[in-house]
């Protein structure tokens, strides 16, 4: 394993399995480097599950998938205590959340109580089962998917809950060339299993490096302006702007992006690339704009208004 190559080695490993979807791969790595959770929104069949599983495989980490359904209970996620008759004592059965990479598939299919249990665990990085509190493994990253096409019987995530996700990635359809490559690569054989290219220790090391990436004062002001304009622009398509958590998210993501580009300092390009990922799900867009896909256009328009340092 060539861990000294940095996180780019994971990118290359994922690209061998997943055709296209550069944004998804980069978003997953940004989340990993920032210890943040990722929300993936896109229609089914776009390799979201494969990307998450491949990331866990590439890091030699544990992967768990939770299919969210309307009858799911919080204990189905975090675990429960059962009475062991042989030992005459309660034993703890850990839920699927105890993994390095957790895929919460179709998170909006579960009721609010279950969503809250997951989101609380994401925030606290520990769960309490009975009288005991159990820390979650490190690294721990949740990748939740939402299906925008099928809104029947779903429980939409409130904005306050969405705010807990570091970034949101809109997963789009592949291009014709990419679709042809998918056909040639996976028509006969299943997706290849990725051999581990890095360890969990390496991930922790990369995270420390990302944390130390230099973010110049001019860039910090640029980030603040990007967030403030979502509140002060009085844009007719926006009901409310992004929270200060978005400011922190952009700063962390810009540092991680710089590390992915093998730099120890961030540049305006890093900030502008990650800003939409951190802002899109934190802004209250009008229903009409949000439904016709105009949110991205409005956000791009606002970002373009802020002068680059």
């Amino acid at each position: 394993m060539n861990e000294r190559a940095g996180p780019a080695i994971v990118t290359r490993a994922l690209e061998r399995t997943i055709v296209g979807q550069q944004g998804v791969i980069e978003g997953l790595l940004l989340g990993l480097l920032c210890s943040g959770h990722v929300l993936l929104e896109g229609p089914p069949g776009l390799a979201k599950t494969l990307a998450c599983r491949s990331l866990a495989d590439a890091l030699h980490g544990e992967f768990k998938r939770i299919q969210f359904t309307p009858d799911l209970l919080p204990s189905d996620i975090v675990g429960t205590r059962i009475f062991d008759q042989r030992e005459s004592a309660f034993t703890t059965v850990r839920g699927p959340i105890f993994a390095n990479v957790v895929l919460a598939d179709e998170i909006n299919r579960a009721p609010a109580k279950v969503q809250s249990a997951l989101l609380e665990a994401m925030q606290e990085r520990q769960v309490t089962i009975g009288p005991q509190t159990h820390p979650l493994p490190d690294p721990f990253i949740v990748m939740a998917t939402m299906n925008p096409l099928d809104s029947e019987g779903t429980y939409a995530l409130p904005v306050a809950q969405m705010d807990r996700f570091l970034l949101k990635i809109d997963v789009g359809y592949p291009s014709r060339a990419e679709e042809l490559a998918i056909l040639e690569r996976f028509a006969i054989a299943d997706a290849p299993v990725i051999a581990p290219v890095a360890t969990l220790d390496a991930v922790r090391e990369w995270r420390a490096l990302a944390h130390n990436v230099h973010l110049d004062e001019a860039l910090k002001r640029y980030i603040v302006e990007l967030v403030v304009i979502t509140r002060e622009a009085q844009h007719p398509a926006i009901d409310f702007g992004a929270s200060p958590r978005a400011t922190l998210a952009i700063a962390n993501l810009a540092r991680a992006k710089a590390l992915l580009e093998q730099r120890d300092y961030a540049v305006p390009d890093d900030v502008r690339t990650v800003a939409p990922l951190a802002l899109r799900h934190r802004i209250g867009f009008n229903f009409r704009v949000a439904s016709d896909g105009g949110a991205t256009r409005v956000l791009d328009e606002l970002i373009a208004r802020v002068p680059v340092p």
Partner: protein
Amino acid sequence: MALFSRTSALILALVAFATGGPIDAQSLQRLTVTQLTLSADTATPKIEIPFHLIVTAHVRERISELDNLDLPILAELELLGSERTTVASRGGTTYRETITVVAHHSGAITIAPVTLDATDARNGRNFRYSSNALTLHVQGPGTAIVAASDAWQGLRALLGAVLRLALILVGVAGIILLIAVLIRRRPLPAPVVTLAPPVPVVRDPGAQLREALGELERDRTRAGAMRARHIVRRMVGATDAETLADVLRRPLASDLQLRDLLRALERAGFTHNADLTAAIAAAIAQLERMTR
């Protein structure tokens, strides 16, 4: 005209009290009569045009009706209708009857006074209160104002008409003046001046690179690096909204040396302090290569 009616009514009411006298009626209302007047809404009604006679009485007591009010016989006028109102308040009761009439013949008409029989509440004596009489001058179509009183009324009407016309003219002139002032105050639209297209100042890229180099050599700090970066970005036509990735997509930035310079200046502008000196040195070196 209304002013005339009111004034005359007040005066005539006083006359009415002076001419009132005791009567012999037995069951009369006990009233303190303070006003009893007869007036018209015009002193010069016109033939076949309805006008109003107005009887107004005021008593200090709160009553619902005046029982013994006698209206005169209107022999020379046709009665079209009447409307009565009685308004009781803390100060007493005001009775008002409006009689709509029309004249069919021109000339002077004298209407007899209205009378009210009541017991004076102050001394218990019965009285017949009497209003003023009313003289109207009915004017027919084309009727010449020949009588002396008619001449005075005509002169008053003429003066009134002249005064009204003068007031209207003054009002119209005032409005025109106001509009003129407002139009003058409004800023006039800027005249459309067709300017010749500016002569493009084509600066020698070499001169701009030398300027950037000079800036950076004078001030080897991050601020100096940002100024040099600004000069080079301006040289390739970058705007404030563009990042380095955008600038590198510009056709003017296709030169490999220029691309390296832009990257070096980006590094000098945003790198951490420990790397700043080396980054500025690298940018200077690149600038020197390009200006040589």
